[in-house]
């Protein structure tokens, strides 16, 4: 049995018939073909699949696709606008906030919501807000710096 589902991803609308058990992350990766959203675990610990759904950072492995009918989703591929990097993306580049790059899309989108909640976060807030995202390469030091850098840039633009 397949069920119809419609959603907007990075401004483009998609409609497919999917198995009810298909996880959103697999829909995004396999059906839609946006492979920037990664799968790093089976237990919703790692956060590599973090996306924005209706403005909220969520783990795409925690949803069945059919639960997301009508959702507006932003994946890492949709964050840069008109070829211009989002300040958080720029921050990760400037501050060497990534090494292998696998956790990076999830980190960037988790940081996106973090900076909406806390536009000028303290180091402690940043570390606490990254609770749901694992990185094995950076030891988080430069991820914290990248987010601080982005916060400064974004505050300056306001």
């Amino acid at each position, binding site marked *: 049995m397949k069920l119809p589902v419609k959603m907007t991803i990075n401004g483009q609308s998609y409609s497919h018939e999917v198995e009810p058990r298909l996880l959103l992350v697999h829909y995004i990766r396999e059906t839609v073909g946006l492979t920037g959203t990664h799968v790093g675990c089976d237990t919703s*610990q790692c956060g590599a699949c973090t996306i924005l759904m209706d403005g909220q950072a969520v783990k795409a492995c925690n949803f069945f696709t059919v639960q997301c009918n009508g959702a507006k989703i932003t994946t890492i591929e949709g964050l840069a606008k008109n070829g211009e990097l989002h300040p958080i993306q720029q921050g990760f580049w400037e501050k060497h906030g990534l090494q292998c*790059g696998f956790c*990076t*899309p999830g980190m960037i989108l988790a940081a996106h919501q973090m900076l909406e909640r806390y536009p000028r976060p303290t180091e402690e807030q940043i570390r606490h807000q990254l609770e749901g995202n*694992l990185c094995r390469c950076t030891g988080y030091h430069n991820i914290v710096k990248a987010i601080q850098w982005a916060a400064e840039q974004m505050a300056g633009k306001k």
Partner: protein
Amino acid sequence: MATATIERLVGKSIKRREDPRFITGRGNYVDDLKVPGTTHAVFVRSPHGHARIKKIDTAAALKHPGVVAIFTGKDMTGVNSLPCGWLLPDLKVPPHMPLASDAARYVGDPVAVVIAETQSAAQDAAEKVRVTWDVLPAVTATDKAGAKDSPQIHEVAPGNTAFTWQIGDAGKVDAALRGAARVVRKRIVNQRLVANPMEPRACLASYDPATGDLTLWVTSQNPHVHRLLMAAFVLGIPEHKVRVIAPDVGGAFGSKIFLYNEETICSWATRRIKRPVRWTSTRSEAFLTDAHGRDHVTEAEMGFDAQGKIIGLRVKTIANLGAYLSTFAPAVPTYLYATLLNGVYTIPAIHAHVTGVFTNTTPVDAYRGAGRPEAAYLLERMIEAGAAALKMDTAEIRRKNFIPKFDNGFQTQVALNYDSGNYAAAFDRLLAMLDYRKFRSEQETARRQGRLLGIGFSTYIEACSIAPSKVVGSLGAQAGLYESGKVRVHPTGGVTVFTGSHSHGQGHETTFSQLVADELGIPMEQIEIVHGDTGSVPFGMGTYGSRSGSVGGTALLMSLQKIKEKGKKIAAHLLEASPSDIEYANGQFQVRGFPDKAVPFAQVALTAYVPHNYPEGLEPGLEETSFYDPSNFCFPFGAHACVVEVERDTGQVKILRYLAVDDVGNVLNPMIVDGMVHGGIAQGIGQALCEGAVYSEGQLVTGSMLDYALPKADMLPMYETDRTVTPTPVNPLGVKGAGETGTIAATPAVVNAVVDALAPLGIDHIETMPLTAARVWGIIQSAKR
């Protein structure tokens, strides 16, 4: 046509060229690939630690809609055992078939593969495969493997002993310890870890029946090693008909060096079903099947004279190798471990005895640091235990024992000859950053208030830039450990570089470009780095053991020299001068001392490919290949310190400061080196405080990220890092290696800090990591009684 001197890039924190694709979601990892007609593989694995396979019934599964094929070990005829690439004398090498058909020997051991049109069909059908098991007793504990009543895992290895091995002078150590003013004896457990790169392993094997070519995309640190082992040793197919590609690799830390069952089986199966076969590990499978790390149980004795000088060290280690010998498993607890037991100290007598044992656990192999963290942990724990026994300051005892500064060679008691070192200098820098005296006085105050504040040091050495082929060959390696580097200059002056090194996060596209840009005096934009593809890169050994800068970089440097030498001949012809009068500077070939009499690099390149006006007898083209085999290992070193506070009521350890002074020789890109140091420290802290694989009754209890605690952002501090620079004389770049130092150094620094914090309770040692709140609380409670 004089040009301004071009700014050198080596030594600068150039932003990474690879980042734009990663931060925009355009990385290209194995699981991102799409090949038309691909089938999906799911493995049926043993749920038992040890069980005889009586029957595998695939009938129901074969009827499942979408199933293409199901194979068991019996179907894989003509296939050999997965090889062990490091053979110690008298090593017992049991067969390790890609699919077990007689018995399963660890939870996760694959016994069948189901291949279907979709992932979900394969998953569903795999659940319908019925295996009849005869469950046997399992042994998982390192120190129980050799017990008389333990189950026998392999016929070829009585007592589950894979090898016994020793190094050093036992008699000398006996005499030294007999004459010691004080001998400290400790049992030290270095627990089992799981590498956990964020990208799980994956492969996609695609056979072309028309050409007979097999392409394997696989998460690999060393595609040529994968190809050689798989094609030549296991599947018996010609190496030249196999192309192995490792695209972007999402972290590895050693775990993607080895040839595993899954890619071997998919490569075999695609030839059988003549369709592409893809497999991506789940995280649960990663916990069960990625090679684990560490897992030593050691009894150590360190003797001191009355002044606190170390006079002897005796080490007896049992190393758990898991159920089978993974690719380089025997090397890790021997040549990568016991040869490092001299550390940074003058130790006149050392002897180490190592027993490698089989258990019903996931195979163990190199994990970041591989043997060296175990050695550093032992030494650093023992020297601080010695300080406690002798009531000496932990900084003072180190100073007393450091090997004095040397520039070119120090012969250790355990085979290695260190390249260059200045251990006291790194330590002094660390103490200054720390304001050590001030800390000790603050600690006094804190202790009077009942607070448990502690500091731990770690002054470590490691051996990297792996490795001189002759040396490792004489020690049992079945491979050389050189590296390849090819430089192709295009007619218009662009340069493509092919390196046998393969980045899995280290930023080679940036650092190697910096190196090439400096040597050729051309902008980085004109340089492309190609790696991870046996179809285009000359045979190379890959990235591990902190070898890419030192070994891979030197291979590139050699090719760049050859390019310049040939370019000089072409330029000399164009300038009507003698080649010996031509020098290369600032991106042009010029007559020595006459920068106006010059031809730019691009013009020489064009001439090489359009050789109308060309030297007699010189080959056209401008492309050079080199293989560099190092003459020795390189030996980075450094000094780390950790300051912790232990919460008395909960046992929670909080890291207040973490400081690191590393000496990795010359540095190509400080930003990248710092990043690797940070990540290494986090992994070392992870071992000390939260990570550990636990088996119970044959089962891996810590089989997911829910149960195995990886370090998170909120348990780690900002790291305070600095460097001293002692270039190595071993390679022309003077670089030693920077990928593993943090992991090697951090674990003992943290544990020493916790022990120091608990010292007022009479604690001088903690046998077992990780130091979770529960464990530390237990220690505090029993100390009270």
